């Protein structure tokens, strides 16, 4: 396919359950489209080279760096961002509650990435050793917390969830 940098291409993204028909330049990063075309600024950009993990979103259920993907390559994908984490009634997701309770965030910039990276694993956290859990979170950088609160929060989230759904 002949790609011209500034020619707009039509794509369709499902983000947090909403379908968006968009026209994007083929070079636009997915993170930029989420942030600046859709206004979903909860996804942050910390390095633009795939190391810090601030821009992590779920693409078809799996955590991925939205700074390492062009929006056109995500055409047709089902994307979940931090804005889609809390329930519709405004109640925090158990992971969010856990991060608050365990002081898993300070400046908050890496936080959405950590939440999305932890989302597929927090229910299994109880079965993981400390090393294993840290390894599982080892794709995300935080410069503020020293990770103590983050690790504790991911470990606690499943229990909070169980408590939430108890009668």
């Amino acid at each position: 396919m002949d790609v011209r940098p500034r020619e707009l291409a039509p794509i369709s993204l499902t983000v947090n359950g909403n379908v968006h028909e968009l026209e994007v330049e083929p070079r636009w990063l997915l993170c930029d489209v989420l942030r600046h075309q859709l206004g979903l600024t909860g996804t942050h950009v910390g390095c633009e080279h795939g190391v810090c993990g601030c821009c992590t979103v779920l693409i078809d259920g799996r955590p991925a760096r939205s700074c390492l993907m062009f929006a056109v390559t995500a055409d047709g994908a089902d994307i979940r961002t931090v804005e889609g984490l809390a329930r519709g009634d405004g109640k925090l997701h158990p992971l969010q509650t856990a991060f608050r309770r365990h002081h898993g965030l300070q400046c908050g910039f890496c936080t959405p990435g950590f939440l999305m990276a932890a989302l597929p694993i927090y229910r299994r956290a109880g079965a993981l050793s400390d090393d294993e859990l840290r390894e599982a979170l080892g794709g995300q950088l935080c410069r503020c917390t020293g990770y103590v609160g983050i690790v504790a929060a991911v470990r606690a989230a499943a229990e909070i969830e169980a408590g939430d759904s108890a009668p």
Partner: protein
Amino acid sequence: MFGERVERREDLRLLTGGGRYTDDFEHDAAQAAFVRSEHAHARVLDVDVTGALEVDGVLGVYTHEDLTGGFAAPLPLLVPHEGIVRPRTQYALAAEEVCYAGETIVMVVATDRYVAEDAAGRIRVSYEPLEAIVDLARAADAGATVAHAGAPDNIAGRVSEEKGDVDGALANAPHVFEWRFEIERSASTPMEGRAVVARYDERDGMLMVYDSTQAPTGIRGGLAALFGVDLERVQVLAPDVGGGFGVKVMQFYPEEVLIPWAARRLGTPVKWTEDRREHFIGSNHERKQIHHVRVGCDDDGRILAFETRFVHDSGAYCPYGLIVPVITSAQLPGPYKLENYRYEFRAVYTNTVSTSPYRGAGRPQGAFVMERTLDRLARELALDPVDVRRRNLIQPDEFPYEVGVTFQDGGPTVYDSGDYPRGLELLLDAVGYAGFAAERERAAAEGRRLGLGLGCYVEGTGIGPYEGAAINVMGDGTVTVAIGLSTQGQAHETVFAQIAADELGVDVERVQVSTGDTRRIGYGVGTFASRSAGVAGNAVKRAARSVRHQAQEFAARLLEAAVDDIELADGAARVKGSPQSAIPLGRLALVANPLRYAYGAEATEAAVFARKAYSSGEAPLHEDATPGLNAVEYYSPRSGVFGFGMHAAIVEIDPDTCNLLVRRYVIVHDCGRVINPLVVDGQVQGGFAQGLGGAFFERIVYDDTGQIQNASFMDFLIPYATEVPAPELHHTETPSPSNELGVKGVGEAGAIAVPAVIANAVADALERPIDSMPLSPLQLFDMLHPDGNGR
């Protein structure tokens, strides 16, 4: 609420994607990109921008020649000092000479960042490369290559100071040692880079700037002066800031001047968001120093004289003056009594990114030098390093303690309070010092090398000049608190709410704190130097007390009671012991502001209430009354307040990978009275992680030509969760007698001792001296194979 583990108020926003960082504003703004010098040192011969102008979507391309007046002058020197020999700051856009790779030369503004970078890529800069000087030790020599063409040498400034008689004491000391210590260049690297958005409205002449800065009020004042307009015509908001650690307090970086300039010139909002590469080459670094120490002591390890002569890497310019080496000099003695102490430093220009404070701000260097000196002399004299420390510690009955040299604020360094021996004993207990020798032996029998290291520090915090707080009670009982400080994650919206809630007898959930918005309070200094709790905390206390007095006086009048008999509790003012007399604070605020009550149930109730209350025919307000319940108060501390801590690490060196394994890390920490333990723990844990980065992972590496070799997170290794163990925390609380809350700062504390402690622990494990930091697996490999075999 003071002292309670209150969950953070700001979290709800930040956890749900509702945080607002600078790049989250003005999606439709034009965007800037910069052409930065490729050379560490060069003359700029020509800038050809024609290619850029041809790009569709470009709105403007600017070089130094386009700037006039103050915009064409060198950027300000933030902290002047009489020791500065040749002050140098850069131009917003380079004029004739560039002095570091990364220096801004051209600004392109276009419809979006992609287009701006397209255009920037088509700009041709012709350079005449000049020889660059990068090596700090060589740069300080007479006759060295100069970082600035035509300069006689590279000395930016020099300062020396002496307490007692160092030469005399050294001459009489039974033991004198000389050592060289070096600490490498590093950087804050917050997860959010810098960013600036500016919007100019020519109809009312208002300039609105969003800036990821630690000091919005200073940015506002500077911009107003630069544009030659009233302060009221410029407003600056530091919204949510994604980490700072020092690098975001500069006043001014070039972009902070140029983006507002472009917004006014183009009449359209303009945004610049730093990318990570730009951050490494265009935002300040810190840490690099080389110390030459002479220390004299007696047979028991009591220090009789201490001298350090050191060089500090200023980088290409000295926008922040000499503050980092000044802090190193004042804080190097730490908790130890140095009766005879002399320092002498030179700040030296090199063709590298300029340096300015990074969390710890000169203290990690000082602590490294002091703590390694203590361990080395203990080893030379075959003494227990703990005993050496015990013998040199300042004792609890010696406060206030005069260190005898000048503090960073220009006054004397006087420690307000502390109990260092208690902290040290608590640490030794916690880490199991007494049993460690046996543990070390057992490990050695298994072929494992364990080491234990200690380190102590004192941190001057809470420096002036001042901070303020504006408090206002809303009609619904909400209390708003505006402080001039920005927040980069320090929980300001929570801890200052706690202070106000206590004073006003309201639930902390009813207090809303706004930070870093000059529209809300025009005077403030900034969030740096671990000063927010100590300075702004006490300002909030004062403002809340003024509001409480207003409420008491007004309620006393309405309830026909004595002022002293009115208490504030449960969100209301009431006569003590008479809950039925309670007037909700919001209603009181409305009644105290006649005719404000137009809408809402509270207003209607207040109106009815007011009619009854004023039925005596009395004027609603006294002649000198303040309407409503609101106050602005400031606090200007006379001097800093000094927190302290003692750290210990037990480390093991992996013989196969030469990786550093931190088996245990114990911290005893004292920041005076703790406002919120959750937050203090988080600050100390985060500081520790950053300190550990500086001990083993992070260093900025330049080659001889002045190119950074690791300007990305792939190569500049911030530790992940896999590298940072959870430290064990213990607190002591020695209140500061200098402010009414008894608090001291905590922001930088955790980071200060870590390189020193890790160095001592590794030196203990390998039984070899360590005189430079950070360490790396390669260095450990070489230390494990001193004969050179194994490579």
